[in-house]
């Protein structure tokens, strides 16, 4: 059994009022301290390449995405957020997705798709905002998922650096 020894209050403290005044002085001083609020939509949280935002498809310089619709990301996704239908293409890679949907409401931003992808096609962007008035509107199709490689470049470099360790 633990007996907690409470400190005996001094007479001054038991008078209560002086202590209240002390508390009031503290709160009064607080009023003139710098404020810590971040005004969110105007002052967004800074992001870095480590930020794991929503997955996006990187568009290469030739205007295509690197995805070969192998389905690895689809299989790796623990939330079943990705749906891919493949089709043939005349390009050298022979296969490309006909449909590439990610249900952003299902996605848990785990980054497994990025890890699973053998073609460096899908990356976690720094986009974090997600709002719509319908659920359907938050199922992003291929066009909505495409981002230029340059915007994803810091993340791409970061992922390569990590992969180099293996």
């Amino acid at each position: 059994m633990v007996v907690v020894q409470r400190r005996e209050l001094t007479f001054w403290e038991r008078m209560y009022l002086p202590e209240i005044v002390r508390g009031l002085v503290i709160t009064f001083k607080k009023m003139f301290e710098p404020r810590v609020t971040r005004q969110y939509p105007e002052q967004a949280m800074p992001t870095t390449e480590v930020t794991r935002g929503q997955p996006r498809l990187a568009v290469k310089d030739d205007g295509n995405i690197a995805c070969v619709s192998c389905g690895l990301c689809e299989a790796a996704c623990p939330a079943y957020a990705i749906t891919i239908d493949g089709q043939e293409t005349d390009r050298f890679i022979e296969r490309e997705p006909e449909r590439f949907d990610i249900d952003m409401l299902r996605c848990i931003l785990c980054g497994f798709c990025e890890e699973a992808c053998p073609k460096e096609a899908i990356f976690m962007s720094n986009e974090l905002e997600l709002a719509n008035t319908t659920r359907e509107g938050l199922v992003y199709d291929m066009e909505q998922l495409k981002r230029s490689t340059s915007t994803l470049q810091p993340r791409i470099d970061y992922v390569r650096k990590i992969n180099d360790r293996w």
Partner: protein
Amino acid sequence: MTFLILLIKASLIYGGLLVTAAVMTLAERKISARIQLRIGPNRVGPGGVLQPLADGVKFILKEEITPDGANKGIFRLAPIMAAVPAMLTVAVIPFAGETVIFGLDFGLLSLTDLDIGLLFVLALSGLSVYGVILGGWASNSKYSLLGGLRASAQMVSYELSLIMTALTVVALSGSMDLREIVEVQNTGNPLAWNCFTPVIGQVGLILFVIATFAETNRHPFDFAECEPELVGGFHTEYSSMKFALFFLGEYCAMTVMACLTTVLFLGGYSVPFWEDAPWMVELATFMAKTSFFLFLFIWVRWTLPRFRYDQLMNLGWKVFLPIALANLLLAGAFISLT
């Protein structure tokens, strides 16, 4: 003509009271934000100054819900009972002396000067307890009932200390007329203010301020709402404009109590070192003094934690009442000596 002047005065004073209450809701949020290093509402209008308006619109547009099993009539009556007494009391508060606006003689700036102004204020503010307890009872909810019961027990016990302390002032100035009380203190010398009467004044001021906190159900004595235990206390079941009325009543009561403290202890509208100041200066002085007490209401709320209920009762009956009585006795001795 007299009737017209009375009408203008009434609309000015009541407009002023309601505006003060609205400003107080904003000030409450702004100051609490500052104390907690936040910014507070700042989206509606420049710096958030139109927030009370937005709140008002929202209150009006909200759905009004009357719970099943509530006593409909009393449920409707309670918010009115809570708000009206608080608003009525402002009628006897003297805001300034002889007032002339645009050549129009308004007489003394207060709605009416009753011989028993102080009694009127105390009696009416005692009535506001009905709003709280009826609201709690009529809601047919255990939390509301508990909140209402607590509030009424608390208001009744603190009213005693409040009245005793007010009596001290009555003894010192020899009148129950609030304007008389101010005029006695208005000598151009701030040391004539009741709060500077040795010992009696200071003890009285502190007791009175604390009692007003309990009387208006403000922190640290807000057992009527006490969110962690009672959800929202007596107004748990209230929504929309009915809830707003309770709120308005609370802020009006605060404003009136701040005015009353100013009148009783800080010389009301008397300007330091300027006995016959023009009415504008007097009004400004009165407002400045009252603002301090209004600020104190908010400041204390965001500093102190809530009392425990038994502590509150202990404090009220075993500490405040004896001190208030002793103070009254002391005041009697003081008067007979001088």
